[in-house]
């Protein structure tokens, strides 16, 4: 149907084309901002075309993935990216790459060396984010049309570099590569805020953003190395030539536990390793516990009988006890290590999302940054945090995600929904209102994610796309006013329906999408996220409180949004003093595209979300399988320890 090699090239093109555009636009910028913005919008449009060309075959492949139901025996335990450049096999793919960036150590010759790889690929979780990144960058370029005139070449160049770094992080399946791209986003973001920001405190805001998120992600770096070092590839205890991920039973039915092999940086392999080590520890512990129970009963039975038998039983019991203690210490060590690694790993992501109370970099940044940059921040950069949760934190620390996720981070998410909604209501600036509204919606996303159910994770993956579209479009729409009147202070506007009816129409559509009106996109993902809070997995763990908090978001989001609409769009006309001699006009052609495109996508995703859901299903089920196993493991341990 299509040539796989071409599509693999297309993956690379989607990733690196923005770098080329950046160089081009930087040169074009020398001859004025008009040339720069033309080149930039053409480049962004071209990129959108390439992304669509990539997305179409990917979605077809992803939707047809079979045998990936959670309950299927042969279901994979690891992410299986398709269209991986450098994949040795030609046809469907081996979900691996041979492109090593940096070889750390050579292990046994049969095993691939421990190497940081250039491992990028497509799966159900990232393909839609890549499309989103492409769409949002195009919109960002369009809304910068009139507002950026100084050093436009540099501005667009940094914008493209930001896009490239974000897409790189979306596509990475190597944990170090992911981290590199993740951090690379900081540099363009820093310059975009610091040099092209609108407010007086832009340098301070840029510094704050840079340091705060860097601090968070340094913890993540520690976590990444911890995870890599504690989860080496398991190898069979008997023959060093074989590596596998299963706990083996030999021909006599004895269970053979694996030994530690070389370390790996591939997220897919790390997932397998984490799963194997967890199961190994748990299995050992369960066996030791059972043995001890058996020995205890044997000892009790022997009581009062032949002293020889008693002695023997006692010795047996002692041995079982020692064995149990060793294994238990092992398991506890592994678990407490996982505990710390979980919190270290998640630190960078919760700052990036941001989750209340780690959101304080956001108000300053959003109010100082140019509108287009804010759009990219909330539309796609925030998704690095949420994707990090789903791609790295949960699969690599499944036990802790089950144990700590909902009580700690679910709670922060629920708190964020309510707290940020109240903060949003009290804002006087449109940008700040949109910023806090974004925090509130992302709180719901994180809360739903940590239910670790198919409904919640799918809802989260879908909400990333939906929230990106609506929150991004909201900032684009605010840019309309910022460009014309140089202010986004709500008190200076009133009755805009009469003055800008076409603009008001699009604003209403996006606002309604944002409050979760059925038929528009956010409704679907919000329903999925809330439903996840009513599954028995969740209600048994934390009751119904989080469900109530999430549902209250339905009202709260309407509360601040409708109040904003009343203030700004209804009532008698009031406008700030216009900065130009010519009165500003309603929608310009490029704005029709910038506002219409996301609005139409919102409608399509609201009515026909199933293809998107279908293409995510197999990958969500991979994670659910991991967490279901972790949940079962923890349940067994709990019941055995009693």
């Amino acid at each position, binding site marked *: 149907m299509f040539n796989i090699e071409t599509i693999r090239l297309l993956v690379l093109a989607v990733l690196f084309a923005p770098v080329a555009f950046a160089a081009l636009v930087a040169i074009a910028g020398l001859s004025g901002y008009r040339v720069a913005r033309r080149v930039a919008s053409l480049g962004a449009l071209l990129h959108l075309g390439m992304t669509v060309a990539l997305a179409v075959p990917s979605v077809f492949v992803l939707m047809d993935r079979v045998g990936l139901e959670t309950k299927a025996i042969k279901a994979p335990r690891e992410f299986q990216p398709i269209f991986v450049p450098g994949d040795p096999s030609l046809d469907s793919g081996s979900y691996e790459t041979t492109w090593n960036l940096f070889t750390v150590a050579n292990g046994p010759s049969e095993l691939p060396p421990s190497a940081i790889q250039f491992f990028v690929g497509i799966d159900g979780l990232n393909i839609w984010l890549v499309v989103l990144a492409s769409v949002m960058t195009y919109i960002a370029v369009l809304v910068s049309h009139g507002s950026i005139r100084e050093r436009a070449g540099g501005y667009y160049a940094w914008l493209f570099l930001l896009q490239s770094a974000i897409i790189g992080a979306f596509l990475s399946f190597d944990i170090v590569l992911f981290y590199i791209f993740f951090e690379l986003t900081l540099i363009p973001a820093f310059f975009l805020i610091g040099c092209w920001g609108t407010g007086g405190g832009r340098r301070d805001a840029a510094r704050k953003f840079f340091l705060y998120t860097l601090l968070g992600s340094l913890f993540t770096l520690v976590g990444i190395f911890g995870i890599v070092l504690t989860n080496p590839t398991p190898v069979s205890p008997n023959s060093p030539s074989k590596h596998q991920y299963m706990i083996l039973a030999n021909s006599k039915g004895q269970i053979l536990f694996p030994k530690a092999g070389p370390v790996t940086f591939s997220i897919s392999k790390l997932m397998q390793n984490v799963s194997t080590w967890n199961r190994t520890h748990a299995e050992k512990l369960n066996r030791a516990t059972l043995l001890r129970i058996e020995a205890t009963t044997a000892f009790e039975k022997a009581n009062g009988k032949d002293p020889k038998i008693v002695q023997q039983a006692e010795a047996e019991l002692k041995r079982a006890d020692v064995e149990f203690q060793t294994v238990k210490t092992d398991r506890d060590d592994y678990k407490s290590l996982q505990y710390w690694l979980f919190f270290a790993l998640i630190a960078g992501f919760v700052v990036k999302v941001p989750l209340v109370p780690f959101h304080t970099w956001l*108000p300053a940044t959003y109010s100082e940054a140019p509108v287009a940059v804010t759009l990219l921040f909330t539309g796609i950069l925030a998704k690095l945090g949420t994707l990090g949760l789903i791609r790295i934190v949960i699969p690599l620390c499944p036990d802790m995600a089950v144990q700590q996720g909902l009580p700690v981070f679910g709670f922060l998410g629920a708190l964020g929904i309510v707290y940020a909604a109240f903060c949003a209501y009290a804002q006087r600036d449109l940008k700040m209102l949109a910023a806090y509204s974004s925090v509130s919606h992302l709180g719901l996303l994180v809360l739903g994610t940590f239910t670790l159910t*198919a*409904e919640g994770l*799918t809802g989260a993956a879908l909400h990333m796309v939906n929230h990106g579209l609506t929150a991004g479009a909201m900032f684009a729409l605010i840019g309309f006013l910022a460009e014309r009147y140089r202010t986004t202070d709500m008190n200076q506007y009133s009755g805009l*329906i009469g003055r800008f009816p076409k603009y008001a129409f699009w604003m209403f559509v996006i606002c309604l999408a944002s409050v979760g009106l*059925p038929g528009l996109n956010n*409704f679907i993902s919000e329903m999925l996220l809330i439903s996840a809070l009513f599954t028995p997995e969740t209600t048994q763990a934390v009751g119904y409180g989080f469900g109530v908090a999430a549902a209250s978001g*339905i*009202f709260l989001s309407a509360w601040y949004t409708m109040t904003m609409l*009343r203030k700004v769009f209804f009532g008698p006309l009031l406008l700030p003093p216009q900065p130009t001699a010519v009165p500003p006009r309603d929608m310009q052609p490029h704005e029709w595209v910038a506002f219409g495109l996301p609005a139409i996508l919102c409608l399509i995703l609201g009515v026909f979300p199933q293809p998107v859901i279908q293409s995510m299903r197999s990958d969500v089920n991979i994670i659910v399988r991991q967490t279901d196993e972790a949940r079962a493991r923890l349940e067994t341990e709990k019941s055995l320890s009693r």
Partner: protein
Amino acid sequence: MLDPSTPIGMALIAAVLPLAGAVLAGLLACVRLGRFAHLPAILSFASASVISAVVLAGVAEGHDSLSISTDLGTWFSVGRLNVSFAFLLDPLSLIMLATVTFIATFIAVFSAGYMHGDPGYARYFSIMSLFVFAMCLLVMSNNFFMLLAGWEGVGLCSYLLVGYYYAKPSAAAAARKAFLVTRLGDVGLVLGIFLLWQVGGYETNFDAIFAHIAQYPPASGTITTICLLLFCGAIGKSAQLPLYVWLPDAMEGPTPVSALIHAATMVTAGVFLLARCAPLFVLSPEAGLIVACIGGATALLAGFLALAQNDLKRVLAYSTVSQLGFMFLALGCNGVISPKVAVVAAMFHLFTHAFFKALLFLGSGSVMHAMGNVIDMRKFGGLRKLMPWTHATFVIGSAALAGVPLLSGFWSKDQILHGLLEAGESHAKYHTMYFGLFAVALATACLTAFYTFRAYFLTFWGNERTPPEAHGHAHESPAIMLVPLVVLAAGALFVGVLVDPLTHWFGHFLERSPSITEAHTGYLAHSNMIEKPHEFSWFVAGLSTLAVAVGIGGATALYRRGGPEKVPPALKGLYSLSLNKLYVDETYGIAVVKPAEMLATTGRQFDGFLDAITRLITYLPRLIAALLRPLHNGLVQFYALGMVLGLAVFLTVVVFRSAR
């Protein structure tokens, strides 16, 4: 998909037509043909109502349970949450569909005259069509999520229509209030839906959920919680206590919009929801009692508030709240008495109420049109000569609303009263409470008759007065506005007596709805009552006639000569309470709105505080540096001392460790 050869295919076509009308009206505006925007709306409503009448005629005969469902593919489906575009055609949805489209047709015709020449003409008709579409979607849905789509859709359209005159601050405030107050109820509805999803075997379609609940009944506490949460949604949408406050304010929209909201779409949604979920409510007598009590309290309170209003439309608005309370009174009996009586009575009242309430609102719109958009009854009076047609139809509507015997309102109210009395006489758990509610209902009926005729006399009797805004050429409305009035008046006169008391067609048809048959099965399983045939009771009819007579008599005695207001001195206090709407809005403002706003401001300030803490943490390195800086003082002797001391400590430790 939309196969016209099957009843449900036809019904779906009828439901989708208004959507096409909405799109077409919007497109007309884009090509500067906005002045023709009423055509797609009227045509689509009219053809939809003809189609639904044809469907109705096609399935009206027979005694079997009637329920045709169809599934037009998946909407979204993940894990245990599987939602499809599922539609259901049963007597309940069919009657709603027919009523909605029929009433909407005439409201649209009236609007074409009323809104003539308005700059937002196309916008008006486009949103109105969308409104009707959303309502059709709501009644045709076969699962809670489709229902929610229609439910929120009507909420949105009412928001847009109430805020139609966007430049008016009061309209903007009313629109926001309508949306937010109903949304508050929706939080409960959504919680109820998901709780039901959890205990209902993860089903989303109505029939599947009810079947699952019937087979595996959950704990009675759970089912009561679910019922009450669902009822929260109905409280918001159908303007019951304590969330009724949005409906009187919703008068800010154009008057035909009020007719639409009060008669056909929007507020009836809550009643429909409870009728649809009758199989659940049958299982929980506690929930039933609470529904009935809230309905009764709302009916009485709204009736009281309607007594002293000076705004004609506001009187009608409170009367809607009160009449909706009646419907919930009936629904609250569901389970205590057979749903075949309770739910049918509520739906019957909804049906007849749609006719006379639409009529009254359109009539008041006609008055308003003539009076230059003035609706304050103190500013005009004695209009019966000036506007003979409006007067004639208005008096019919008032009589029907008041429940004058033989008019349609009388029959439906009689069924409700009869149901309440029967509930009181039953041996169910809380049966004595229903006697009290019966008395409340009777008192409300009396109040209804009084305030309706007070408004009627103040408007049409006494000396002829017109406000200055009418510029002295107040006139009867054009034919395009009078025809709908006449048609609806005919409905108000005859529809009640034709469809039920004489033929019992309405009840028998509605009983074939699976919601009601299932509820009836549940009712029989839970109560050991022998089903009594529903008979006309002269006692109830006599009492209600007496109440109406007292009400109308009082109004005639006081207001026969039109305005101004005459209040017996003893009742001055009560009058001012009613006039000031019991200060409910003010109380809510102080008790809920202000605290929430203050909380928001506190939240914003706290956020600044959080930021300060973060900043403080960033000063930590600098602080540590400041502490350590004195050590680097540049004195070689100091460094040497440090070295020696350090070495000494190190050696001591080494020595002690090895010695141990």
